[in-house]
């Protein structure tokens, strides 16, 4: 009995001791956490002060990299896989710039989450690659990333700034990446020549007796009806349809509404106001038309799950498998033919896949113009001129502005000459790649960098990417206007018929309402198209959308639009 009482007391004492130790341990942790807080706000204040001064001569000197000093720069980039051991180009650039590059392996598919974790743990990379605008704004507002005065950027990265300013309208560059005269992020440029493709099965058009590629919405309607009813593939089976989900882009576009099977929330400018495109009366007209087509069996019943059934996202399996005759899936370059006469020229991914099954069908592909709608409007969805996110400058650079100058010099490298760009993209000149002149299908010759020697099998992005080439050193790419790609896109009018989302910044309440609003919209659209609900239900949907938070978004969008004029 004695023993039991004694052991009870002893164990009670031990428990108390353990709890005290835990409490002590926890307190010291909180101290660390709270001590880092004032630091963060200090940095934001410093950033503001910098902004107020503008770029004085003292600023320029402050950012000048110190000769001979070997900087340690922590780096993140769009990584397809962890950095290879002894990454060739990492060593090359480290020697070239006399720096030591510390790559933080951030898996691209979970980039936002992992970056948040790293930042919470205090590891903020100097070159901070973010993939969403929301994260970009967050990081800047919380002081995780800092801005660098524009004049300083122009001094240390003049070529990069020049490319940016030449290829991006000033107001867009301003709203995405400049605050108080400071550059807060280097954007990734969207490609002005790329948009949703307008692709027809040429052999089907011929087989149903259509000689002219459809130009108006009526001709479009006629074509897709004939695809459905007149057995264009000649197999005596009623198994073809006119179009599927991606094709809606052209139909909505004929009413002036930008819509893409991947980007279904868009804002447009109407009567000098920024309004939500998907609740406009024009969208209702488009839905009514689509509903009629669905009832007549012209739309593939499997449109709800989309045209792609797995694998590379841009493949339209419905189109490749002779199920539909019109598609806007992927981007224009996925449907491009071989553009040079060299032996290893490859066509766009969709054409390549289709050639495996149906070479004649693949060869008959025709690119058309966007169909003109009843009010004379036409277009298909295209991405905005800047993509989301970009490369930002980590907090640590505020303490070491000379390192920021060095980083800017490194980022300027690819834009200094064609050789530099190709080195950053493909590796060491004449060792890993060499220039080759190939004849294009347009009659001119194109000088391209072609992998040589053992690096031929590196062609493609994975190996280059994990050896610190490709996206590692290049914040953004610009399409060369002499290239065959540019010429082909000009031929199919790739820079025309663009309908883009005109809202260029994330709205403060977007994250809160997005999921619910998307669900309401998806359900409403699908039920109206499939006929489950009448077209009149659209007005009900608009009311629901506004009530579930859409009204607030409309207000915020109007405020943003006003602030940009």
């Amino acid at each position, binding site marked *: 009995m004695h023993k*039991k009482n004694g*052991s*009870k007391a002893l*164990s*009670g004492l031990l*428990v108390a001791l353990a709890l005290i130790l835990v409490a002590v341990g926890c307190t010291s*942790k909180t101290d660390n956490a709270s001590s880092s807080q004032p630091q963060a706000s200090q940095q934001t204040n410093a950033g503001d002060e910098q902004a107020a001064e503008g770029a004085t001569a003292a600023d320029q000197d402050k950012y000048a990299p110190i000769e001979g000093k070997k900087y340690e720069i922590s780096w993140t980039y*769009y990584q*397809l*896989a*962890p*950095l*290879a*051991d002894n990454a060739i180009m990492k060593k090359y650039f480290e020697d070239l710039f006399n720096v030591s590059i510390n790559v*933080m*392996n951030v*898996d*691209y*598919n*979970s980039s936002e*989450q*992992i970056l*948040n*974790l790293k930042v*919470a*743990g205090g590891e903020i990379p100097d070159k901070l690659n973010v993939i969403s605008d929301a994260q970009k704004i967050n990081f800047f507002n919380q002081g995780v990333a800092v801005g660098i005065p524009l004049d300083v950027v122009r001094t240390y990265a003049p070529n990069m700034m020049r490319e940016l300013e030449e290829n991006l309208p000033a107001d867009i560059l301003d709203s995405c990446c400049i605050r108080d005269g400071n550059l807060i992020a280097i954007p*990734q440029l969207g*490609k002005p020549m790329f948009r949703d493709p307008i692709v027809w099965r040429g052999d089907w058009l011929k087989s149903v007796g259509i000689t002219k590629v459809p130009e108006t919405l009526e001709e479009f309607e006629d074509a897709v009806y004939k695809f459905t009813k007149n057995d264009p593939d000649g197999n005596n089976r009623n198994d073809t349809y006119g179009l599927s989900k991606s094709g809606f882009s052209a139909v909505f576009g004929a009413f002036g509404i930008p819509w893409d099977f991947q980007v279904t929330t868009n804002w447009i400018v109407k009567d000098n106001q920024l309004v939500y495109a998907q609740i406009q009366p024009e969208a209702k007209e488009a839905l009514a038309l689509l509903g009629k087509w669905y009832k007549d069996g012209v739309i593939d019943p499997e449109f709800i799950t989309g045209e792609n059934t797995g*694998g*590379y*996202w841009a*493949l339209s*399996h419905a189109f*490749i*498998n002779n199920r539909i005759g019109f598609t806007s899936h992927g*981007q224009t*370059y*996925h449907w*491009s033919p071989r553009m040079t006469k060299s032996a290893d020229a*490859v*066509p*766009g*991914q969709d054409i*390549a*896949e*289709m050639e*495996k*099954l149906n070479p004649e069908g693949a060869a008959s592909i025709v690119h058309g113009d966007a169909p003109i709608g009843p009010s004379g409007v036409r277009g298909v969805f295209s991405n905005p001129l800047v*993509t989301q996110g970009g490369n930002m400058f980590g907090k640590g650079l505020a303490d070491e502005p000379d390192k920021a100058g060095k980083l800017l010099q490194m980022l300027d490298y690819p834009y200094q000459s064609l050789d530099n760009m190709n080195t950053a993209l493909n590796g060491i000149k004449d060792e890993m790649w060499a220039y080759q002149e190939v004849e294009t299908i347009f009659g001119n010759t194109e000088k*391209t960098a072609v992998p040589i020697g053992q690096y031929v099998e590196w*062609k*493609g*992005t*994975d190996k280059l990417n994990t050896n610190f080439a*490709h*996206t590692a050193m290049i914040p953004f*790419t610009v*399409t060369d206007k002499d*290239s065959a*790609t540019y010429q082909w896109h000009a031929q199919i009018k790739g820079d025309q018929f663009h309908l883009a989302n005109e809202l260029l910044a994330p709205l403060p309440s977007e994250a809160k309402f997005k999921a619910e609003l998307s669900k309401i919209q998806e359900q409403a659209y699908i039920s109206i198209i499939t006929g489950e609900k009448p077209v009149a239900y659209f007005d009900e949907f608009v009311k629901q959308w506004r009530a579930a938070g859409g009204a607030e978004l409309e207000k915020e969008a109007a405020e943003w639009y006003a602030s940009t004029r």
Partner: protein
Amino acid sequence: MRKTSVSALLFDAGNHVFFILLACTTLLPFVYLFSLSISSAETSFATIRLLPTHATFRNYEVVLHNPLIGYGFINSIVRTVLGTALSVFVTVMTAYALSRSYMPHRTFWLIFITFTMFFSGGLIPNYLLVKSLGLFNSVWALVLPSLVQTFQLIIARNFIMTIPEALEESAKIDGAGEFTVLFRIILPLSLPIIATLSLWTAVGHWNAWFDSLIYISEAKKQVMMVVMRNIVLSGQLPDVFDASPSTAVVTPETLKAATIMVTTLPILVVYPFVQKYFVKGMLIGSVKG
């Protein structure tokens, strides 16, 4: 006497047909993936087909020659073996202690531990904890945080409670100490629960990938699942550099299929043998009589 009535036969037939269909439905994706993995990259898989046109093992060659897959395999095996052994050992010890009625403050400890089953710190606090303990880039970051799962602990404890205390008392009378009782008497009698715990923990460790993703940044120390994830997810999101056909080359579907097969094979091989313990283990924690 076996009932040979019509209704019984009908029921049997219906049952058999249903389960054969169910089995086929379950097998179908697997057969498809297998045939994908032994096809050459030039075949179009835009239409689903079950039999490959040309069988080739080239994909497996490429996969098995990828050094990262080799490292991934080793890391996964090390993590699984180490994690399972440690986890089972500590869990059984804890369960034994908590099962003894004379353990001081037993109720308090039980409540304290069960509390953690319902509330946890979340992702960021866990991340900060592992970071501050200096476990980054080591296998311990994968093994230690999930060392004792409360649910498994409770099941083990329930099982050990069914072992009569009389056995223990008689051992103590003969002069056995606590550890002798644990290792000589309780452990041999707890083999079913040990097998169950081992199986659950091993499968958990083999399949885990997120912790490896966030705690380990060196490519050579990643587990198999993360390597596979990188390969399989290639091409799923639009590449920001997708400028033209020549710059975007995607891992062929056939290679992805071969990678998945290679990853799944070990579990497939082990499962049939330990399956019966799995089923038994599910019922172990339930109350008996």
